[in-house]
């Protein structure tokens, strides 16, 4: 399997902080030129780029609201022009949550989470498959969640989106497997990032490992799945959750 990072570049959405930022750094360490996607955290995204560059890597911040149907072309176009090669690695990491119990969840809270966490990932995947099919190689990793696999009261929208993302992962994976493209998901559990700062610490007691995971631990899994060595892994869901979904 030829060296993917030399043939293409990578895009990580939601990479200004948390799992996305850690993933961007991990991919850059593997030699990928990385698009650090962000919506509004420009300073944070630039900080990630600076950190990658000071470690000898290549990166650029790329802004978009991924719920905009034009966003995929804009993001991919920017990276293709900047690096002179196609995006052959896509990490659909950007995600939002807007929690409430099912009987009181609003239409808006439902739709916002579906749009960002599922529909945007579909559109970005659709756009990514175009150059990947032509190149006969590619890597897509979707950042799902333990909540897409196991019930978690108060997150029906997030759970539905993440479960949908897992189904999309499997379906698309088998469609394009013979083109040398792998599509996988990671399903993080409780990870110590901004997204989980409001979480009741008592919930951590249910985690067999008795601790939250780190963004770097999730990024290491994404890094493996995007590597040349993982070419026979596709349609898989890798839980990174200290045993929570087991």
């Amino acid at each position: 399997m030829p060296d993917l990072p030399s043939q293409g570049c990578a895009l990580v959405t939601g990479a200004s902080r948390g799992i996305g930022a850690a993933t961007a750094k991990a991919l850059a360490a593997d030699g990928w030129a990385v698009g650090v996607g962000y919506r509004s955290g420009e300073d944070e995204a630039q900080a990630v780029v600076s950190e990658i560059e000071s470690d000898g890597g290549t990166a650029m911040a790329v802004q978009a609201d991924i719920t905009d149907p034009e966003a995929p072309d804009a993001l991919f176009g920017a990276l293709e022009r900047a690096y002179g090669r196609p995006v052959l690695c896509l990490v659909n990491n950007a995600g939002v949550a807007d929690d409430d119990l099912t009987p009181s969840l609003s239409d808006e809270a439902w739709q916002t989470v579906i749009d960002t966490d599922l529909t945007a990932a579909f559109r970005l995947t659709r756009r990514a498959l175009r150059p990947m099919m032509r190149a006969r190689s590619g890597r897509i990793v979707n950042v799902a969640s333990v909540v897409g696999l196991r019930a978690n009261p108060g997150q029906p929208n997030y759970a539905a989106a993440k479960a949908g993302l897992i189904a999309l992962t499997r379906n698309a994976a088998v469609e394009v497997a013979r083109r040398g493209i792998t599509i996988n998901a990671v399903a993080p559990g409780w990870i110590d990032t901004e997204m989980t700062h409001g979480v009741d610490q008592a919930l951590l007691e249910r985690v067999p490992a008795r601790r939250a995971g780190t963004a770097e631990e999730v990024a290491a899994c994404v890094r493996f799945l995007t590597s040349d060595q993982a070419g026979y892994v596709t349609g898989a869901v890798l839980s990174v959750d200290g045993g929570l979904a087991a």
Partner: protein
Amino acid sequence: MSVTTEQVESRVIETLASFGPDQSQITRSATFEELDIDSLDLVELAQVVEEEYGVVLKGEDMKDLKTVGDAVDLIVERAG
């Protein structure tokens, strides 16, 4: 953009050959089924056609195409 049937035919045959079949088997009358060309291959062919000739082939267009000649004729018709 006007294209000749010969140009389109040559490009279609070249593209189909990249999906696996022996180029010598790819004739106007050959069916996609005979050539083991499936729907994913046709999606990729449609992308090539769109990029090079500006012709958009949707799912419903592709369903009716049975032979290489069908595809070539449709592309030439839409490009003309």
